[in-house]
């Protein structure tokens, strides 16, 4: 029998914080692409859903030394549970196997119809990348004005009340790209064929997406930069989202450091 070898991909993202202007287009593109619900009053920031969250960070200095930077935060698609095992912190704790780490893509998925809504995964995630559906956005509250529900993407299932959701690296786009490649008789997809909505929408081109395992892809080259780092890297969760910043204070704010400890470059 012929053995079919499938190449292992490791999809990841590089976000250049020096280029990010904090415009929030990534957040809007993400929400619209993925049918993220919203309410008429979105002032309760502890309960609003933003798969791509934008943090504003500050160096804490007084004028004129004060500096600000923006920190877009999608799901990190972690690889390890911090214990050397191939499970991200959320995957290993989920009670009903509703979230899994796809070994062939590196994407951490979320099966909404299997999630029981215990929220243990949210407790385990230090990035706050997971969101609970406190309201039944589509059934009762009708957040969309009349006719606007037609803008919903048919490729992404809307979520019911009481389940957890998160960034999927626009997994449906990967499916779409694979379908196209299959129809054209190809086994592999090209770099530009699968990119996330946030990467596509970013006007500053601060977000680059691709296969970290493929040396030809831009992301795998960018992560070799001395300015590359990951968020909370020392927790050993092995995120697939990398950041670039030439500023030391930004890198320092991306992880916890002991007093007097120098900011390290890329580890692992």
């Amino acid at each position, binding site marked *: 029998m012929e053995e079919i070898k499938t190449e292992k991909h490791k999809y990841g993202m590089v976000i250049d914080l020096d280029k990010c202007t904090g415009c929030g287009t990534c957040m809007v593109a993400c929400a619209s692409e993925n049918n993220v619900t919203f309410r008429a009053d979105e002032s*309760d920031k*502890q*309960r609003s859903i933003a798969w791509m969250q934008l*943090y504003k*960070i500050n160096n804490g200095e007084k004028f004129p030394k004060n500096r600000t930077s923006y*920190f877009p935060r999608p799901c990190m698609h*972690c690889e390890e*549970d*911090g*214990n050397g095992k191939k*499970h991200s*912190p959320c995957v*290993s*704790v*989920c*009670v*009903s*196997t*509703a979230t899994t780490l796809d070994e062939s893509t590196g994407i951490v998925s979320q099966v909404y119809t*299997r*999630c*029981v*809504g*215990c*929220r*243990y995964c*949210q*407790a*385990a*995630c*230090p*990035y*706050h990348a*997971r*969101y*609970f*559906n*406190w*309201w*039944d956005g589509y059934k009762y509250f009708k957040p969309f004005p009349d006719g606007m529900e037609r803008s919903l993407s048919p490729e992404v299932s809307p979520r*019911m*009340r*009481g*389940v*957890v959701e998160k960034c999927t690296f626009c997994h449906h786009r990967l499916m779409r790209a694979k379908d196209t490649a299959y129809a054209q008789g190809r086994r592999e997809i090209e770099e530009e064929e699968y990119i996330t909505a946030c990467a596509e929408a970013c006007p500053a081109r601060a977000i680059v997406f691709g296969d970290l395992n493929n040396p030809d892809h831009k992301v795998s080259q960018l992560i070799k930069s001395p300015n590359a780092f990951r*968020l*909370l890297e*020392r*927790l*050993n*969760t092995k995120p697939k989202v990398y950041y670039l910043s030439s500023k030391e204070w930004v890198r*320092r*704010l*991306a*992880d*916890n*450091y*002991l*007093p007097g*400890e120098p900011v390290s470059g890329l580890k692992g």
Partner: protein
Amino acid sequence: MDSALIPHNVNRCSTGKFLLWTSPWLALFAWGTVSALLCLALGLNQTNMSDIFVFALWIVFDLAVIALGAGAFFTGFLTYIIGRKELKDIIYPAVIIGFICYSGAMIMLGVADVGQPIRGWFIFWHANVHSMLVEVSFCITCYLTVLSIEYIPIILENRGLKKIRELDIFGHSLHHIMALFAAIGTFLSFFHQGSLGGMFGVMHARPFAAREGFYIWPWTFFLFIFSAIAAGPCFTILCTRLTETLGRKKLVPDTTIQLLAKISGWLLSIYLLLKIADTINWIYGVVPRAGQTFMDFYKQGPYGVWLLVCEIFVFGIIPAIILMTPKACKNNGWLITACLMNCTGIVINRFVFVILTLAIPVMPFDRFWSYTPSWQEWGVTFGIIAFGFLVFSVSYRYLPLFPREKELNEGKA
């Protein structure tokens, strides 16, 4: 009116007085029911939980009552497995308290606290064997079944039910195999008390809760077992003493209570030694590896080092010393104070593991959020407490819970 159902040769208040006593609890229970129904109908937006405080009052309460309910399995273990026959005087109330705590926790977890209660069976059907919460769910479900089996023969001892021959024989047969269920209960309880602690210890990306451990079990696994068996008997003592005070009579011999208090005191001291060792190990291991210092965790909002001092010293070492001093245990005031302090310490421990773990941000640029429970959350919580009072009151009135009651109160009536 209901005198035919009240056990022989014991004094119970009039039916009217009993109904008056139950009415506030029924009112609280009704509040709880309304709150739970609101959560079921409209969703968890009825609570003040958030994406930061994904576990809140209910989980703290659940963990606390499960720890306090440990008196049931541990007293069963001492009575039937170790063979301390004098504890038979208190085993029935211990079992009922355990049943109340576990069923209350199950109602709360299974009905109110999950986003999709109708999918509860997914935990068993699509079980992720790596998850500590799966172990908790399996063990708690099995143990609640065991507790129900242990409760049935007590119910069948009711005077009215005893007249039905078949039920009487069934009840007696169950009594004979109780040691087997006590053993199963002990095994299950050890595991889920541990898994509840393990749930927090395995969260490697949350340095406040994360712990190293032995094989797949983080140290919190063992600490939760010890703290539960140290506090559980004290809670059983408190419930018994409360019943004695309200019923104005003696129900359990002092020697039994003192034995339980002594065991509790020694276990508490062993637990505290382990807890102190674990805290030091955490301060010098997990914390610096995460790039943080001990004080980083105790400078946010109202949560200061005072919490740790309260947990270990005020509500740990002090009650342990009192409980281990035989002279102090003989004094009812000291005994009750120590038991109350012991139980408070365990509740603080569970509170710290649930709330502080979530409240303290891990990302340096993240902010500290606060949380206050909504009236619906308090409603469900008080509803469960009321449920406990109602079940215990009805059991006390109609079932011979305390075998020595008649003997201890002879000549009084």
